[in-house]
């Protein structure tokens, strides 16, 4: 299967912002255009479509894949159609946006066979039979690669040719095998071995140490024997001392008890003496009867007849003395409680008495106040009596007043009449005096002298009715005053009656309170007497009980003293029975400590020996460990040395293989390259080419290397000499030589590609040679399609004889590059 290009569509790829389509379905495709119009971009688009990346990105790392996207676009898309000799079409599509999202597919005759990016890469590689690196070396021949070979130094040229031949990897492997690292590790191990050797030299020899250890073990055995003997002796002494100590302990215990008992007896005697001094001895029965009598009298006072009976029934005996004492104390307690109650009662009565007395005094004060009021009111009562005696009762006075008022009315009327009469007389008199005559204005009677005399007499007569009136008025006044006073006094008398009642009541109450006070005073006197008596009885009983307790204590002490004395006698007897020799004990103890000291010395010797043995063992172990480690390290050193030797051998093998392959490939190339050169180079001065390989030594980073260098030689027709082509020939000739070489490589490579791409292949090459080169390429077996990207306009003429050739013209535009089909 041989594949060729049919069509490509690009959008957003490098200079192409818009969608462009180029039909490659021709044996020769020429892409013309000035710099920057996208000639190389189209060739790169083909490479990107096939491999999803570029050689300059993936291998040379000149820029990033994102840089392929046009600056005015968010993504790129490339669609490439290939076809084989049977007309089967292979369509590969690649899409990538700025966020790194990708899409791709591979179709065969419009049927999608793969849509996963990485799988498409391997499918394409399989279809083309060549990887990205091979494609870049043998299919798409770049101007820059050609320049590297022509104008580079011998070393650069050789490296570039190695790259083209595909054997530079072997050179890289040869250089990269890190022998130094192994050497370093080996050196570290050697150092460690040396350190171990130094340490081992410092130590005693191992066999001497083992001999020493044996001697120490023998000494240890002997010391252990001695120790065992001392242990037996010590055990005997220890047993003896144990028995003696037990005896001593027992003896000491008896002695201690004896001392304690003696001290206790002395103490008892002292106490007994003191008590005997304190209490005169009295008969217990008499004492008990006295106590009984006192308590009974007191119980009678509080009328506790049941308790009285209980006390009476008690009988004196030594055994029941405690019971009696307890009962006596109980009853005394009861009496004390009763006494407390009586005291409380007396207090209560005293409170009542004080209250009654206060009440009595208050009543008395109130009565005195009432008496004083009564005295005043009695005076008023006397006045009342006097007035009633003088004027009569209030009703009578009222009647008199009414009578006098009537009389007074009459007198007033008389006085008014007399006044009128007198006024009339005065008028008549006056008229008479004035006129000499006069008549009565009432009856018209003429006034004569008689009448005048009578008038004058009347006018001059005293006024008795006026005198009477004054007298009546005076009486009336007096009566009215008496009347008013009586009203007033009547109220006072009512008040006096009320007070009198109240005074009588108070007097009665006062009598009652006085009787109460007397009664309470009698009661309190009785209680006080009772309390005093019970108190005396309790005090007497208590004192007797105290005495009884002391007497009882004396009896007890005497008994106790007797017991202690008996006990002491027993202890003394026991002390006699225990045989304990202090001197013998001391002798045994001395012997024991002497044996113990000897034993301790031996023990410390033994301990020291053990430590020495342990140290020696550790030392031996340490030396053994050092020896073992040295052995292990030596083994490692051997392994590492073997690895180093292996790698040196492998390294040499890669170098040898590289030389062999180089020779094989070069042998293959020379023949083919000569054939192509002869077709391409139309001039007669050079007839043949060959490649010579020579080995050169060189230094890099302080180390010496050897590598093979290529020399391309051309045979000069004139003298038949082989001359170095890349040094002696012109630029154009050199370019033809290299194109011959690259084309030969294309031919020799076992791939499935039938197209060759030439990027700017012919600067400095004359027209004739250019034409010959294109013709030659077109004729080469296995090349069905030639794609040329160039600035050189002469290619229009070169391909004019080729009827199937297609020419695209690229030009600059504002919105990026534009493509025109010229032919």
């Amino acid at each position, binding site marked *: 299967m041989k594949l060729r290009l049919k069509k490509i569509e690009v959008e957003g790829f490098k200079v192409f912002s818009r969608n462009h389509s180029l039909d490659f379905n021709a044996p020769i495709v020429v892409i013309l255009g000035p710099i920057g119009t996208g000639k190389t971009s189209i060739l790169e688009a083909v490479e990107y479509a096939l491999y999803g990346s570029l050689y300059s990105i993936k291998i040379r790392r000149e820029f990033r894949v994102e840089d392929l996207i046009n600056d005015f676009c968010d993504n790129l898309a490339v669609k490439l159609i290939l076809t084989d000799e049977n007309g089967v079409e292979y369509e590969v599509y690649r899409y990538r946006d700025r966020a790194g999202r990708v899409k791709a597919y591979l179709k065969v005759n419009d049927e999608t066979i793969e849509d996963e990016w990485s799988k498409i890469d391997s499918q394409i590689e399989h279809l083309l039979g060549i990887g990205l690196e091979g494609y870049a070396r043998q299919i798409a021949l770049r101007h820059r690669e050609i320049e590297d070979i022509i104008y580079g130094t011998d070393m650069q040229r050789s490296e570039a040719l190695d790259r083209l031949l595909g054997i530079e990897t*072997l050179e890289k492997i040869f250089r990269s*095998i890190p022998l130094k690292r192994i050497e370093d590790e080996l050196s570290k191990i050697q150092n460690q071995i040396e350190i171990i050797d130094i340490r081992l030299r410092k130590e005693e020899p191992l066999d001497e140490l083992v001999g020493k250890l044996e001697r120490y073990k023998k000494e240890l055995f002997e010391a252990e024997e001695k120790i065992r003997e001392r242990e037996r002796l010590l055990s005997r002494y220890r047993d003896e001392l144990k028995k003696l100590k037990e005896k001593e302990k027992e003896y000491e215990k008896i002695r201690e008890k004896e001392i304690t008992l003696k001290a206790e007896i002395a103490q008892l005697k002292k106490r007994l003496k003191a008590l005997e001094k304190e209490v005169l001895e009295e008969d217990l029965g008499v004492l008990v009867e006295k106590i009984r009598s006192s308590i009974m009298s007191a119980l009678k006072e509080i009328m506790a007849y049941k308790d009285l009976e209980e006390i009476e029934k008690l009988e004196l005996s030594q055994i029941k003395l405690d019971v009696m004492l307890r009962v006596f104390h109980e009853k005394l307690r009861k009496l004390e409680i009763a006494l407390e109650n009586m005291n409380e009662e007396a207090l209560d009565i005293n409170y009542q008495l004080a209250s009654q007395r206060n009440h009595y005094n208050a009543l008395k004060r109130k009565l005195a106040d009432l008496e004083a009021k009564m005295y005043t009111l009695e005076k008023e009562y006397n006045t009342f009596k006097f007035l009633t005696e003088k004027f009569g009762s209030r009703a009578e006075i009222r009647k008199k007043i009414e009578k006098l008022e009537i009389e007074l009315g009459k007198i007033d009327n008389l006085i008014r009449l007399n006044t009128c009469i007198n006024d009339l007389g005065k008028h008549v008199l006056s008229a008479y005096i004035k006129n000499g005559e006069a008549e009565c204005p009432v009856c018209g009677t003429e006034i004569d002298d008689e009448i005048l005399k009578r008038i004058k007499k009347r006018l001059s007569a005293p006024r008795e009715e006026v005198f009477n009136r004054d007298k009546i008025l005076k009486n009336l006044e007096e009566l009215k005053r008496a009347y008013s006073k009586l009203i007033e006094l009547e109220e006072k008398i009512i008040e006096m009656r009320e007070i009198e009642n109240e005074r009588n009541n108070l007097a009665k109450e006062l009598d009652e309170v006085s009787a109460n006070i007397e009664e309470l005073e009698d009661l309190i006197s009785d209680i006080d007497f009772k309390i005093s008596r019970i108190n005396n009885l309790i005090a007497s009983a208590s004192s007797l009980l105290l005495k009884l307790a002391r007497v009882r204590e004396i009896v007890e002490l005497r008994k106790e003293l007797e017991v202690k004395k008996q006990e002491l006698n027993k202890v003394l007897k026991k002390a006699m029975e225990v045989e304990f020799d202090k001197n013998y004990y001391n002798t045994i103890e001395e012997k024991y400590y002497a044996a113990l000291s000897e034993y301790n010395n031996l023990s410390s010797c033994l301990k020291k020996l053990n430590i020495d043995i342990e140290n020696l063992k550790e030392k031996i*172990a*340490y030396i053994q460990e050092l020896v073992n*480690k040295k052995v*292990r390290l030596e083994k490692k050193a051997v*392994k590492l040395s073997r690895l180093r030797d*292996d790698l040196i051998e492998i390294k040499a093998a890669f170098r040898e293989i590289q030389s062999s392959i180089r020779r094989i490939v070069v042998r293959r190339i020379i023949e083919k390259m000569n054939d192509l050169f002869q077709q391409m180079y139309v001039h007669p001065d050079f007839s043949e080419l060959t490649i010579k390989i020579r080995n050169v030594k060189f230094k890099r980073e302080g180390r010496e290397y050897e590598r093979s260098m290529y020399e391309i030689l051309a045979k000069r027709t004139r003298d038949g000499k082989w001359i170095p082509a890349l040094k002696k020939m012109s630029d154009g000739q050199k370019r033809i030589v290299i194109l011959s070489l690259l084309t030969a490589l294309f031919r*020799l490579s076992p791939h499935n590609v039938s197209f060759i791409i030439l990027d700017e292949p012919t600067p400095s090459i004359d027209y004739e040679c250019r034409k010959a080169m294109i013709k030659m390429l077109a004729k080469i077996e296995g090349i069905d399609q030639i794609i040329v990207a160039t600035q050189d306009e002469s290619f229009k003429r070169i391909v004019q004889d080729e009827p199937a050739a297609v020419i695209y013209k690229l030009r600059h535009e504002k919105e990026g590059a534009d493509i025109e089909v010229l032919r």
Partner: protein
Amino acid sequence: MSRENDKNVFELVLEMLEERFKDDNRKASLAKRIFKEFLISGKRGLDRIVREEIYKALESEDGNETTIEENRGRRI
């Protein structure tokens, strides 16, 4: 074209390594591993293989080597 001419460089290298170390399988295997690993991962891969080989050589039979205490056994 001979059979040799049809082979690519990769196949030739592997074949030659096999031939070169036909008596030593270990070396042949190591050399082939180095070649393949270098093609896949470059110098880093080669370094890794050598590191592994050094580790294998340094790995003691009874586990990792421990440093011996210098002061041990000095109590005598």
